[in-house]
């Protein structure tokens, strides 16, 4: 069995989840608590990756991450390396691909918190930032955990976007979903079957976890 591909998948899902939690929290906060012109436009933009075919996202990521694209160019002049066909490249792709799955549950969790609780924190002397860290976050744990699990699952399953941005370099960008695809292409059904089978318990357990978290947050 292609353990290396499974390892890359789990590593990718882990980093995507960690970074995305940090990136999505302020976006979700902004969308949950502020009104500003163009808010619905921004919100739609954040959710856009959910509505686009993964190959379309992959295509635009190739454009901006290639050595001629502005992100790829900046990265190249900074480090001398390339973003395409690297683990970092697919991590960025995976983050963008999963943004909606992080922002949406977090926003829902933040919006559920009683405004008066926040006002009480302000009256008690807490700045908006401190209120976010000491009141909003601890009272949205279930929603944040649900977001993390969703992102993790979604990045385990990513395929098209990763194939376009990362190709299939063993140990670097060849994730399990790509390994399955390649095994099937070479008629190696038993190898494909083994990796495929290993997904089922992982995804099942995580889904059970999401259900439990959703119940907890409703209670």
């Amino acid at each position, binding site marked *: 069995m292609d353990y290396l591909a499974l390892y890359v998948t789990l590593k990718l899902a882990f980093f995507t989840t960690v970074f995305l939690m940090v990136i999505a929290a302020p976006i979700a906060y902004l969308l949950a608590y502020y009104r500003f012109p163009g808010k619905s436009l921004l919100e739609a933009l954040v959710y856009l990756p959910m509505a686009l075919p993964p190959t379309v996202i992959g295509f635009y990521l190739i454009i901006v991450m290639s050595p001629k694209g502005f992100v790829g160019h900046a990265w190249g002049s900074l480090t001398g390396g390339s973003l395409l066909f690297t683990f970092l490249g697919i991590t960025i792709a995976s983050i963008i691909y999963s943004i909606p799955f992080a922002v949406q549950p977090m926003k829902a969790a933040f919006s559920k918190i*009683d405004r*008066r*609780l926040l*006002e*009480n*924190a*302000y*009256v*008690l*002397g*807490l*700045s908006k930032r401190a209120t976010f860290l000491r*009141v909003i976050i*601890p*009272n949205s*744990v279930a929603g944040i955990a649900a977001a993390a699990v969703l992102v993790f699952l979604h990045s385990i399953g990513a395929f098209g976007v990763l194939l376009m941005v990362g190709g299939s370099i063993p140990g670097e960008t060849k994730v399990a979903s790509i390994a399955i695809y390649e095994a099937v292409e070479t008629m190696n059904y038993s190898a494909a079957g083994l990796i495929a089978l290993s997904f089922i318990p992982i995804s099942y357990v995580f889904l059970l976890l999401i259900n439990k978290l959703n119940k907890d947050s409703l209670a």
Partner: protein
Amino acid sequence: MTISASFKRRLKYYDLDLSFTCATNKMMVMIGPSGGGKTTIIRMLAGLETPDEGKVIFGDEVWFDSARRINVTPQKRRLGYVFQDYNLFPHLNLLDNAAFAAVDKGEVDVLFDLFKIDHLRKRKPHMVSGGERQRCAMCQALARHPRLLLLDEPFSALDVITRRGLREELKSLKGTLSCPIIYVTHDINEALFLADEILPVVEGKNDDGWMQRTITREPGEGTTAKGAREPRLSLVY
């Protein structure tokens, strides 16, 4: 320290326009029918809402002045604000709630003794009764050493007996606090029991005749205000 405020603000159904002052150690009770603007006034004092025009002066500090475009944030006003039932943070136990913004954490123990909730310190807010939650909310507000105490119907979600007990405790506590206290209620009984001064507020304006009219109104004559029924109830207990 004395708090003096004057507010003007356009609301949906009427214009709010009133001014008042309240000195240290005094309790001013703001009374009037629901929807009369009492909570809006309290929120403007706390800095949570902004008047269209007016001033709020605390001692020699200007908290709000529309003409000079001064508006001190709620964080910097250092006041205590007890709401009807939304003060406590659900994720913290009572002790951590009361110590949330405490100047001296050791003092929380003294307050818990005073308010008789010391045995509940490790409980979460949803595990205690409404009266115990409000006691904790008082501790939370007082532990911050507020310069002004705002109490917006703090006991009105409680049953009559608990409410009477807390009301009496508050009255005996009043002398030990060295700050102005503004108390909002629609209960005339409570107002008469607690107040050093009474400010009746009806549709955003001071209406000194309101209490008299409410008490003397014959039963069945129009709608009877809740406050008018309460004195009769109190004879039972």
